[in-house]
Structures are given as structure tokens and as C-alpha cells.
């Protein structure tokens, strides 16, 4: 039901042409769309009711992300409504509560600044926040900060005396400089440099030297939602492809009559079905037993990465030349799939987690 109503809205408000329009206009964010999402309660999907949210849980967030994936909806949903909201609700104080309210109301866009190198590896963050009086001075650079240009606030992971600390900073704080990354998927990403940025204890989310208590659940929530989005991307690309196989004629018959393509399409469908199970399970597990959800989440992200990659590759190949043209939408699916494959940990990153937990 949630899926159907989301689909109804998105087909109208954000079909693929919406992303194309943003790209052609040189934009990476549509405030009007975001406002509508807030109005429907989507931005507050993980915000507690007392902070003005709908608190529908991770399975529901995954359903929304999946529907967004189907038409490549461009919004800061995962970074803000999933990751930041999950991080903030780990912290029981008024500031966090106010921040959650800002998310639910669609007033605050958050971005997550964790990566420093080309591969996701939060535990290896090197950027330093040096103690300075009662506060810190943060210096260094983050990359691949998704939604970083549109963000009002940014969650920043930095190394402190005994460990890692998560800071929640406004993007207009002195010493913060953002530069846009021109990513293949035409969505918002930034490099952010921190030049002796001042932070106080109030800017710390959770405890000093203990970022992961807050960040781990947030990352896992984001990974699960991203997996769901990728499941949607795969489904969208697959649906286009099957449609094309039925319509397109070559050598006098629909190309869907060629058995080699039939079997490849059928195999791809099997992959999407198996991945759908992993995605649904991750959302459920985050709702029911969040402390034990790591395996489920990494399983979903790994499977989704593999499946969406196959789906877009087969999508382009089966469409032939038309699939290669910018005028056709399939390329957008391929590009989003690649970016999503890297974000929050690639296949190998999550495979390693599965292997560790399964003692392989």
C-alpha cells in the first residue's frame, strides 16, 4: 500500500525525466520535490512521533527508497531521512530532538562526510579533530559526500584522542569549503575541506571517542535503504528491458522470442527475486533486532550491488544502440547503479563483512 501510493506520487512528480531535467539545468536538487516528500511524511519516516515524524521504520524506508530507485528519484532522502535521522535518534537530548524535527519538517538537509579515499572505510578515517580549549579544531578533507552541496548540516567523522568522534556541523561554519563533484549519475556530491574548523562539545553527536555507537546504526540504516534503492533501480531497468523485448522486432519477430535473450532475462529475474528477499529482510531486521542486523544489511547491500550491475548491463546490451544514447533513459540507470555500488561500501566491502560474520 505504501509502495503503491509512493509509486503513484513519484510517477507523476519524479519520473526519470525529472532527473534528466535537473541535469540539463545543471541542478542536483529540487527543493519543491523535497518539500512534497516532507509533506507526505517521507522525510520523517524514521523520526520519532514526538519529534514530528511518522516513525514508520526501516522496512518502510526501504519501500520508499525502492520506489524512488525505480525512477531514479534525485533527493537527499537516504542521507537525511535515513542516515542522519537514525544517527540523531541514537542520542537522547534536546538538540538531537530539534534536529530530528527539522528533518521531519523538510527544513534541514543532512549529508554524511565519512570517506577520505576512493573506498568506503569509516574505521580508517584519518582526519583529525585536535583538542583546543574546551573544543576541537578540525582539519582535513572528505570526499564523496553525497548531497554535500545541498546540505545544511554535515555529519563529520574525525579522529580524536582515543578514537573516532562524530560531529554534527552546519555547512556554513567558518573554515568549511565545499566543492561540487561532477558525478556520472548527475546527483549531488561534494568534496569538503575543513580548515581548522572550530567545534564545541555541543557539536559532538554521541560521545567523544565513540563515534560508532551512533554512526554504525546510521550507516547500516543507510546501507539497507541504499540496497533497497538499488533493488528499485534494478527493477526499473529490468521492467524497461522486458518491455523492450516484447515490443522490439528484429528479423521479423519480437526479440523476446530469441531463446538466448529469454534465458538471460529469466536468469536476471531470478537474481532480482533473490535480492528482493535480502533487501526486505534487512529492513525487517533493522526494525526488529537492530543490534544484530549487520549481516542482514551487508547481505542486502552486496546482493543489490551485484544484481543492479547485471540489470543495467543487460539493459544496455539488450536495448542495443538505442540504449547507448543519452536520449534514452537506460544510461541514467547504469550511471546511478555505479555510484550506488560504491556509496557506503562496495560489493567487496560488504562481502568481507558477511565472510567475517559467517566465519568463512
Amino acid at each position, binding site marked *: 500500500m505504501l509502495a503503491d501510493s509512493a509509486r503513484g506520487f513519484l510517477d507523476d512528480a519524479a519520473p526519470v525525466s525529472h532527473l534528466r531535467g535537473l541535469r540539463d539545468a545543471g541542478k542536483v536538487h529540487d527543493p519543491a520535490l523535497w518539500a512534497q516528500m516532507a509533506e507526505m511524511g517521507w522525510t520523517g519516516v524514521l523520526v520519532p512521533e514526538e519529534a514530528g515524524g511518522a516513525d514508520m521504520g526501516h522496512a518502510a524506508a526501504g519501500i520508499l527508497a525502492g520506489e524512488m530507485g525505480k525512477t531514479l528519484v534525485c533527493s537527499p532522502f537516504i542521507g537525511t531521512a535515513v542516515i542522519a535521522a537514525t544517527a540523531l535518534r541514537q542520542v537522547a537530548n534536546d538538540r538531537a530532538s530539534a534536529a530530528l524535527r527539522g528533518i521531519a519538517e523538510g527544513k534541514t538537509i543532512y549529508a554524511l562526510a565519512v570517506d577520505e579515499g576512493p573506498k568506503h572505510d569509516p574505521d580508517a578515517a584519518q582526519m583529525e579533530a585536535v583538542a583546543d580549549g574546551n573544543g576541537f579544531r578540525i582539519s582535513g578533507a572528505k570526499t564523496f559526500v553525497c548531497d554535500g552541496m545541498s546540505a545544511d548540516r554535515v555529519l563529520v567523522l574525525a579522529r580524536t584522542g582515543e578514537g573516532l568522534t562524530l560531529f554534527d556541523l552546519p555547512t556554513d561554519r567558518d573554515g568549511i569549503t565545499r566543492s561540487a563533484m561532477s558525478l556520472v549519475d548527475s546527483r549531488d556530491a561534494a568534496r569538503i575541506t575543513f580548515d581548522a574548523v572550530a567545534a564545541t562539545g555541543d557539536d559532538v553527536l554521541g560521545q567523544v571517542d565513540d563515534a560508532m555507537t551512533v554512526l554504525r546504526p546510521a550507516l547500516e540504516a543507510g546501507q539497507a535503504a541504499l540496497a533497497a534503492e538499488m533493488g528499485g533501480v534494478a527493477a526499473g531497468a529490468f521492467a524497461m528491458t*522486458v518491455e523492450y*523485448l*516484447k515490443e522490439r522486432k528484429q528479423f521479423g*519477430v*519480437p526479440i*523476446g*522470442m530469441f*531463446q538466448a535473450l*529469454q*534465458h538471460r*532475462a*529469466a*536468469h536476471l*529475474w*531470478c537474481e532480482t*527475486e*533473490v*535480492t*528482493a*528477499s*535480502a533487501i*526486505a*529482510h534487512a529492513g525487517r531486521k533493522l526494525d526488529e533486532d537492530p543490534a544484530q542486523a549487520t*549481516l542482514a544489511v551487508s*547481505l542486502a547491500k*552486496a*546482493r543489490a550491488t*551485484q544484481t543492479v550491475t547485471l540489470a543495467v548491463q543487460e539493459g544496455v546490451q539488450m536495448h542495443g544502440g538505442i540504449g547507448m544514447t543519452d536520449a534514452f533513459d537506460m544510461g541514467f540507470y547504469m550511471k546511478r547503479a555505479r555510484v550506488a555500488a560504491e556509496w557506503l561500501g562496495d560489493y*567487496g566491502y560488504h*562481502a*568481507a563483512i*558477511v*565472510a567475517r560474520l*559467517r*566465519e*568463512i
Partner: protein
Amino acid sequence: MTEALDAFRAEVRDWLEANCPEEMRDGGSGEENICWGGKRWQFQSEAQKVWLERMAAKGWTVPTWPKDYGGGGLSRDEDKILQSEMRRIKARSPLQSFGIWMLGPALLHFGTHEQKAHYLPPIARGEVRWCQGYSEPGAGSDLASVQSRAEPRGDHFVVNGQKVWTSYADKADWIFALLRTDKDAPKHKGISFVLIDMSSEGVSTRPIRLISGSSPFCETFFDDVKVPREQVVGEENRGWDVAKYLLTHEREMISGGGGGLLGGRGVGAMLDGADDPVLRAGAMTCEIDALAMGLTLERYKDMAKTGSVGDASAMLKYYGTELNKRRNEVMMLAGGSDALEWDGAHGSLPADWLRSKANSIEGGTSEVMLSIISRRVLGLPA
């Protein structure tokens, strides 16, 4: 509703506590622990015999079959409770058979009351063991290309021909077989689903050796076998309907064993210290896919509760069996030269590996499954 189920759970728990012999609570599910039943069955132990008798008396060897036909008359939810309580105490399955998995569902759906009353209770009690006679030499995936004939002669048929891949035909009491009863009709229209007593004159069997070693498979020969005509299930010449119905059952059954995980099977230990990225990446990917397949089986079971998964079950068969082949390849690779030896350091692994290659052939090849999905699930043109 929930109260009634809670009460049922308590009752089941008490009954199992009182009636399941200690020796049957070891979770033993290997081939050597299976009770297949049948006229020639040799019980492994008194406990195995007692366990079967007690369960059969309750109708719990076939919990969801009607009580009139030897079943337990349980609802789906009650059955789920019974299964979970049995798992809780690691109770062995009291009886397994093709009669339960295959013929039972076919008879319940297509049989007459007389047939059900006659054939089902002995299956439920483990007194008669059945085997299936579908495939024929040279037919392969084309199950409808049945050549074995059942020629009507008044009140009986005369059956001639040969079946292949009949599991345990040499140990079974009866066989259910697809036979051509009208050779002039179109391929799918002249086949009947016939029940034959294996002790009839003219029935003989020969075991088939596989590349993995000896196997339960046999060739079965019919040489002027006389079969009463009332032993047809469903309408004469409409046996293909029964066969199709059963193929879906078989598909789900085979896929149920598919997947399987590496983590629990000691591959971790086999891989330990191996810094070969090829092997490690293969094992990781296989485990990921197996975990996801396990979740998919659960999801499909849930779906089946509210309706039929229908042709999508072809996915379970296809993906589960292909995955099982991959899993065996990974294990062989992890085992290295130790795994090349029959009954060596890794026991039956080499035979299991070779045997797994048949998974994607038996019960409908992977190619047939993909074609089913392509046409009936995706709606691609045939």
C-alpha cells in the same frame, strides 16, 4: 484463534515428550537415518519402528492429509506448529516417501474417493513404498514424449516399455507412471497417469551407476504387464494434467534442499590461511547467494500461505540447484588435493560434488526452468 493454536502447541509438546523415543531425538537427517517404509523395509531400530507407528496412529506422518485417508487433518498453521515442535526436540522425521511427496498430493487432487481410501492410508502408515516413472530413455526434458504404451484390452491395460531415472525402483512396492494410452492423439493428449504394482509379472528393474558412484536410480522395464484399468488416476488420456501438477511439487521439493551454506560446513576452516583471492571471492559470493536464497525460500513459503507461487517456483528450482553446484565447486576447490580422493579426508564430498551436477537436470533442467520463467512469469513470446 491464537488461543486454540497455543493450546494445540501445548498438546503437541506433551504428546511428543511422551511418545518420541530418545533415540529419535538426535536430529539425524542423513540418508542413513531416513525411514522410507514399504513392504520390504528393515527398521534400523525398534525406536524407529515405534516412532513410525505412533506418528502414523496420530496421522502425523502426513499431518495435513484428511483424517479419513490416514492423515492428521491439521490446518496449515497447526502443521507449522507440529514441525516447529519436532525441530525443537530435534525429532527425526518418522517417514519419508515419494508416496507422501508426490502420489499423495496427486491422488488428493485427482483421485476418486475409492482410490484415496485404497492407496493413501498405507502410504501414511509406511506400509507401501512408491516410486515414480516419468522419464524415458531419450526423452530428457521432453517429459511428454512418452513412448511406453498401455494398450487398453477390455478391463485392463497391457503395458510395455521402459522408464529411466526411477529412484529406488528396486526397493519400491508400487510405481506411478506416465504411459501412452492413445498413440494417435497429439503428444500431450494421449497420456495416462497409471498406478502399477511392482510385483506384477513382467516388471523388472536395473540400477544405474552415476559418475558419482552407485545411485538410487534405476531403469524399469515393463514387458506385457497386465494392469487393471481402474488404476488410472484422473481421466484416461488426461495424465499430462496430473504430471504438470506434480512437476510443480517436485520443483519445490528439490529446491528446498538447494542453497545450503558454507559457513556451517567447515569451509571456513578449509579456507583458513588461504590467501588466494580467487578462492576467497568465490566462497564469499557463494555464501552471500546462499544466505539470500535461504531468505527467498522463506519468503516464498510465506507467499504460498496466502496463495500459490505458481510458476515462480521454477526460480527456486533453477537458482537453488545452480547454487548448490557452485557451492560444491567452492568446497572442492577449498579442499584441494585432499578433496580429490573418494572417501578421503573430506568424506563424501567428491561424490556429493559430482552428484550435485544432476540437480540442474533432474526434475526439470535449468534450461526448462528458465523457459518457464521467460514465458509464464515474464510473458515473453514463445
